[in-house]
């Protein structure tokens, strides 16, 4: 260390200066006599610092796990009173009566699944269409701007979709679309009951459609990314054999990316199931199961958002927490499957 210092000092100093005299520091010499070799000392400090830093980062990583366990633990703890009081029948009871303190989760569960189902029915084909358009059809100069626009839209907060749905989309549906549906689809035998009743504007269908618009950019950007993992060689050889664009998409791109597309769709489903604000605005918040999708309903997240602050009775709060637990378990399973599927795709892409 000292030699290095001296060597560096020589370069900076005018010639002829006596360097040994100048770098000698009596205070430093005394200190090093007292505590031993200064080099070993600083080394010790560095190693100790390294150990501490490793421990710190490891603790932070473990903390991420603690969040998950904390969420699960508090949800279970909070929902215990309701689950003990109602037993497993909590899940298949429709009644939700805060006055009589009788609660069942069936209506919110049904609403959550129904709205997500509608959203997926609409958003998956359209999202795939956008992804196919972006990867196969779009002129190159438009590809980047449209891709960026879609990614930006995926980041818009859900409350924006909610307020738009409430003031613009729901009245539009009520005035123009729903009467048409009731008159035409409502009379089709077999599925007529799905479209029965007066056009409220708000309801399960509206919520599902808003949800579809919301997850659309998400599905589009994720499937586009997945489509781009297809090696160009595969597509080019198909084109070389005379395949049309559609045949390349249907027989090369989709089979190759099947797992990834399913993973992406499940990821979007996970989002849709847990979505709160966009739905709370337009679902109507009625704790009942109606056959018709035009009628108001509720979802797990909407029930919690609407009632939790106002819930006074312990059983009411606990029932809402139990709803949260059910939602968390469902989304956890869906998201875990999605991640595993996407991870297996990455492994393969890395191997090819």
């Amino acid at each position, binding site marked *: 260390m000292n030699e290095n210092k001296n060597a560096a000092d020589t370069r900076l100093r005018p010639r002829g200066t006596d360097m040994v005299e100048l770098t000698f520091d009596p205070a430093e010499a005394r200190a090093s006599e007292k505590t031993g070799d200064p080099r070993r000392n600083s080394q010790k400090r*560095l190693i100790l610092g390294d150990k501490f830093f490793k421990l710190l*980062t*490891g603790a932070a990583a473990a903390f*991420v796990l603690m969040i998950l366990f904390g969420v699960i633990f508090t949800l279970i703890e909070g929902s215990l009173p309701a689950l003990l009081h109602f037993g497993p029948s909590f899940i298949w009871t429709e009644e939700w009566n805060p006055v009589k303190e009788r609660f069942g989760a069936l209506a919110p569960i049904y609403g959550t699944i129904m709205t997500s189902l509608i959203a997926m029915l609409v958003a998956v084909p359209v999202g795939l269409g956008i992804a196919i358009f972006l990867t196969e*059809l779009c002129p190159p100069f438009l590809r980047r701007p449209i891709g960026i626009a879609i990614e930006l839209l995926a980041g*818009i*907060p859900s409350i924006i979709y909610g307020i738009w749905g409430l003031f613009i989309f729901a009245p539009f549906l009520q005035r123009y679309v729903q009467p048409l549906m009731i008159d035409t689809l409502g009379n089709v035998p077999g599925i007529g009951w799905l479209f029965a009743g007066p056009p409220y504007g708000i309801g399960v269908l509206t919520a599902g459609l808003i949800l579809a618009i919301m997850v659309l950019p998400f599905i589009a950007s994720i499937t586009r990314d997945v489509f781009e993992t297809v090696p160009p060689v595969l597509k080019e050889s198909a084109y070389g054999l005379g395949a049309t664009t559609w045949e390349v998409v249907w027989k090369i791109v989709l089979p190759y990316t099947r797992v990834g597309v399913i993973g992406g769709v499940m990821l979007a489903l996970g989002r849709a199931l*847990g979505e709160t604000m966009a739905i709370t605005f337009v679902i109507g918040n009625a704790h009942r199961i109606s056959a018709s999708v035009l009628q108001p309903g509720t979802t797990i997240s909407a029930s919690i958002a609407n009632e939790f602050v106002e819930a006074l009775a312990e059983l009411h709060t606990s029932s809402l927490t139990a709803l*949260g637990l059910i939602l968390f378990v469902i989304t956890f399973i869906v998201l875990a499957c999605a*991640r595993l599927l996407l991870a297996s795709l990455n492994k393969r892409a890395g191997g090819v």
Partner: protein
Amino acid sequence: MIDNALYRRRKLRNRFHMMMSLATAVFGLVWLVLILAMLLVKGIGGLNLAVFTQMTPPPSASGGLLNAIAGSLILTFLGVIIGTPVAVLAGTYMAEYGRYSKLTNVVRFINDILLSAPSIVIGLFVYSIMVRPMGNFSGIAGAVALAILVVPVVVRTTEDMLLLVPNQMREAAAALGAPRWTVIRYVGYRAAKTGIITGILLAIARISGETAPLLFTALNNQFWSTNIFAPMPSLPVVIFQFALSPYEDWQRLAWTGALLITVAVLTLSVLARVLVSKEAK
């Protein structure tokens, strides 16, 4: 000999499906454009100086969104301050010390799930660990809820960005005798700085529009409040409350607030994107 009928059928089929793809793309994009357009039209109508200088009004009176905007800024700031250090450290462990450890794989999996976990459940979690023990709704509880949403985003980008740093640079530093944490601080962080900042910007964009986790943590407050141990207003919650009210003044303010949030979120996302593309050059 070419089977002409088959060839024609294939071409027709191709044209049909490509038209469908184009139609769905146009259909999908039109809705998204419509939403933004309506937001602009409705939001700009209510935009004036009072929005930024006056408090949220009682029903059918004029006013602004000052306390809500301030509340949102405070909550977002606190959320980022609380969440980022933990997340950066966790990401550091995953990319540096524990790159091949089991803990890293588990944490990565869980983190990816937390990334899209329902935010309302996070609200319930923070309610039971903070609001109930403390006895009242508070700004700090809202900030913690937001911090929990910040963590997965920043963990993910920190890990990804540190993994991008070439190993030769680490080896060169180690060969000079630098211990690992010095290598991480002076080589890893320095090389991954832009990426980590981008992650933080994306996290801010994500939490600045979050409503669900604030509903029963920070609650709302009609008045000016900077006390983080008392209920605190925030833009998204005010929008939620005002939009569902029957009063026209409130609804107009809700639209304006929605426009403000969207502009903020889009600006942050664009900024993050610009940073990334600058780095790529």
